[in-house]
Structure formats: structure tokens, C-alpha cells
């Protein structure tokens, strides 16, 4: 299988990439990072861009830990997210979600920027970004723009990225004391999550002070689960609270919106959602209590 013919342009800097997006403003352009969504889609899913702009920008393959946040460059691979002591030490949920992506070879090539820009409804990192309260960093010819993860995913693979913009990175604030987890039901053939749940639960002396819980795979985009979060707030982080919070999961997604496809029915995904919210919260609670090593 070959992709259809296209023109290939390599950009070695952000400004060069933005210049190419401007030059080809009237063409159908795809931005290529690791290529593990785009190349298969160009072979079999009818994506036939006129031009592919390949990002070969070392500056975007970087992880920078700052005072209260880690900035991850868009071209950082999943493998780097998993292996990076900085990522594991400061924003471990991102490392844990990345460790679940695909397989060894996919993690070697696929990037965080490509993952978020592609916004596959079963992708892992969008859930981690939401539960981490991350901010997506965009650039165009006029400057920078920041979009909170909660505003970034628009459903069905659509995102806040405009056609003249480049996703350059993600800013992830450090979680407070407490626990985190990413738990998912993997579809064995596609490698994507049928349902995946990311959770950050901040605690003080065993009581929840803040909770962010997000799900991927359930509907057409990754979403926060506000009813689950509310059920955790100000409660002791114990088994009863976890059960009560998980039982709210289905209230956060309209049953009609549950994804139904050849891999799983919407009804099954709804069942999985409740189960995997519970599993993520159980692990987060164990970690908050110090029962489970974080890595």
C-alpha cells in the first residue's frame, strides 16, 4: 500500500514550518511528526494531502522542567515521555499514559504533539492532558496562543488548531500531593483504548482537596468527568468514596453519545467507563496513601 502522491517539504525550524503553512495556504496540507497516525491514514483512510510538511525541529523534541510546570515539546516521543526522569518525576501521569500507547515501535516514533493534534477519540494522552490540567501551546506567524486542554478537543478528531497554526508543545502543571493513575481497557487489535481513564486526586491528610478525572474512548473526544470529580471533593479518599464517585461516571456522558463501532458497543463502553474510573481511582488512592510506588 502506498500513499497517494504528494509534495514533501521538510521544516527544520518552527518559523520554517509556519512559512510553509503560509506558502501552501490554498493547498491541502498535512503536518507530519512521527507519522504513526498520518501515514496509515494516507494509505487506507483516503487522506490525500497535496503537501506534507515534515517537522524535523530538534527544539521541539525537548522536556523542560520549570518551577511549577513541565513543558513538553510537540516532537517528544512517547518513548521519551516514558524514559524521561523529568517527566516521570514531575508529571508522572503523562509518563504512565504514554507507556500504554501502542507498542515499542509506535512509542519510538509517535509524538505527544501528533497525538494531541490527531485527537483520536481513543487516544491516551488527551485524557492525561485533561486530568493534568495541561495547556496546549500553539504558534502562528503572528505569535503564540495557549489553549487549555479543556477547550482543545472538539470531537471526531477536530481540535482548536487553526490551519495556519502549529502545535509546538504542552505545558503540564505539577500535581499537588496525592495520587494519580491511568487505567485503560485496550482494544487488542487497534492498540487504542476502548475506554481509558486518567485521574489526578490531590489530598491533604487523606481528604480530597482537588480531583480531575478524564476519560478517553467513551465519546467522540476525551472529556472531563465533573460528576465523578464532585463526588470526590472534600471526601476521605477511601473505598467508599471511590465507589460512590465511580457510580457517577455514566452520569457525565449522555448515553446517546457513547461511541459504538465494530470494536465495542456504546453500552459496553458505558460499562467499561464505570469500571475503569473505579480502577484509576483505586490506584490513585493507593498511591496517595503511599501503598504503591508511583513508578
Amino acid at each position, binding site marked *: 500500500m502506498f500513499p497517494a502522491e504528494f509534495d514533501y517539504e521538510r521544516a527544520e525550524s518552527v518559523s520554517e514550518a509556519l512559512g510553509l503553512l503560509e506558502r501552501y495556504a490554498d493547498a491541502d496540507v498535512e503536518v507530519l511528526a512521527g507519522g504513526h497516525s498520518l501515514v*496509515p491514514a494516507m494509505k487506507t483512510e483516503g487522506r490525500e494531502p497535496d503537501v506534507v510538511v515534515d517537522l524535523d525541529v530538534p527544539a521541539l523534541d525537548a522536556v523542560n522542567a520549570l518551577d511549577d510546570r513541565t513543558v513538553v515539546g510537540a516532537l517528544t516521543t512517547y518513548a521519551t515521555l516514558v524514559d524521561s526522569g523529568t517527566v516521570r518525576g514531575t508529571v508522572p501521569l503523562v509518563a504512565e499514559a504514554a507507556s500504554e500507547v501502542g507498542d515499542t*515501535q509506535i512509542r519510538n516514533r509517535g509524538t505527544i504533539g501528533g497525538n494531541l493534534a490527531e485527537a483520536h477519540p481513543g487516544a491516551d494522552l488527551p485524557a492525561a492532558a485533561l486530568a493534568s490540567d495541561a495547556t496546549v501551546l500553539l504558534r502562528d506567524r503572528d505569535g503564540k496562543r495557549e489553549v487549555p486542554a479543556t477547550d482543545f478537543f472538539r470531537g471526531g478528531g477536530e481540535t482548536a488548531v487553526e490551519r495556519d497554526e502549529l502545535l509546538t508543545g504542552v505545558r503540564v502543571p505539577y500535581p499537588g500531593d496525592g495520587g494519580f493513575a491511568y487505567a485503560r481497557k485496550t482494544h487488542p487489535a487497534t492498540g487504542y483504548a476502548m475506554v481509558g481513564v486518567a485521574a489526578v486526586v490531590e489530598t491533604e491528610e487523606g481528604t480530597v482537596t482537588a480531583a480531575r478525572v478524564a476519560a478517553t474512548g467513551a465519546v467522540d473526544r476525551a472529556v472531563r468527568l465533573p460528576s465523578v470529580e464532585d463526588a470526590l471533593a472534600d471526601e476521605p479518599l477511601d473505598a467508599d468514596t471511590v465507589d460512590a464517585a465511580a457510580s457517577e461516571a455514566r452520569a457525565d456522558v449522555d448515553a446517546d453519545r457513547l461511541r459504538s463501532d465494530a470494536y465495542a458497543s456504546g453500552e459496553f463502553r458505558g460499562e467499561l467507563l464505570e469500571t475503569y474510573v473505579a480502577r484509576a481511582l483505586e490506584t490513585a488512592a493507593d498511591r496517595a496513601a503511599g501503598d504503591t510506588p508511583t513508578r
Partner: protein
Amino acid sequence: MSTHDITLTVDGTTEELTVESRTLLVHALRDELGDTAPNVGCESGKCGACTVELDGDAVKSCTVLAVQADGSSVTTAAGLADGGLDPVQRAFHDEHGLQCGYCTPGMLATTHQLLAENPDPSRAEIRRALKGNVCRCTGYESIVDAVETAAARLRTGDGGGEEPTAGSERAGAPGPGAED
């Protein structure tokens, strides 16, 4: 359509070739250069039969454009054999880690990365590392056995007995990359 002059170093030999934008690395290797160790299996990035090491990372060469690999170093399963089977290949042979052999070049490439990073993997770690390499005939037990055997031999510097000097560079203790 655009074409591009690229340079690839494949199994130690530097090659210059001209590829279309859409030429996939696996086709450049097989059809342009005659390096037929990586096999074309599912063509959709799932089966791993086309896996090669690209600058030391196991990648599915059906999901990389050849032009993306410009300037890179590619190691195929054939390149691992230097005058004889290397310890990983020898272990797959000894443990019956293959039947038809179609998936094997990819299994070897991924195993090489695994053992460079983790010289003493558990069986669970081996299975996790090889998740992206699908075998449809022999089953995975003997493949995991083979990787365990290869790891043990590499740790002790025993290349497998019959050809102790084969693949000598790789047969010794894992290099500094093991700590990465």
C-alpha cells in the same frame, strides 16, 4: 509529485538513492536497495514484520517515509549477522523461536533494542516489548524463551557456543546504552 535524493546507511553500507515522497522506508530497503530482511506484512503498522532499527530505535519501516529517514542509519536483521548468526539469532534458532520465519526479522530488531536497554528482562517485560511483533504460526512461548536465552548468553558473553565470535561487537556485555 516530488522526488528526493536521500542517503541511508544500511547495515553499515552507505547508499544514495532517489525516492518519491510517498516511498515507504520498507520499499526503499527492499525494492531499491535489495535489503529484503524486513518483510511487508500488514502494511498498516500493526504486525511488525517490517521492523528495523533506525538510529538504534526499533521502528516499523512500513510507517516511515523513506525521505524521513534521510541521513539515518538502518540496521536490518541481516545486518545483525556478521559472518554467522549473532547471539539473538542463534537463540531464536536454538529455542525454536520461529516456524515460517516471516515475522522473525522484525522480532530480532525489536529484541535487539530491548536487550540493549534491559539486559535482564522478565518474561512479562519481553512480552510487553514484543507486543508490536505478531507471530501467526509458532506461538509466543518459544519466542519468549529465545529472548530469555539470548539475554542470558549476552550477559555472560556466551554467544551461543557454536560460533562464539559471531557478531562480536554485539556479543559482549551491553554497552553504555544499557543505562539509558
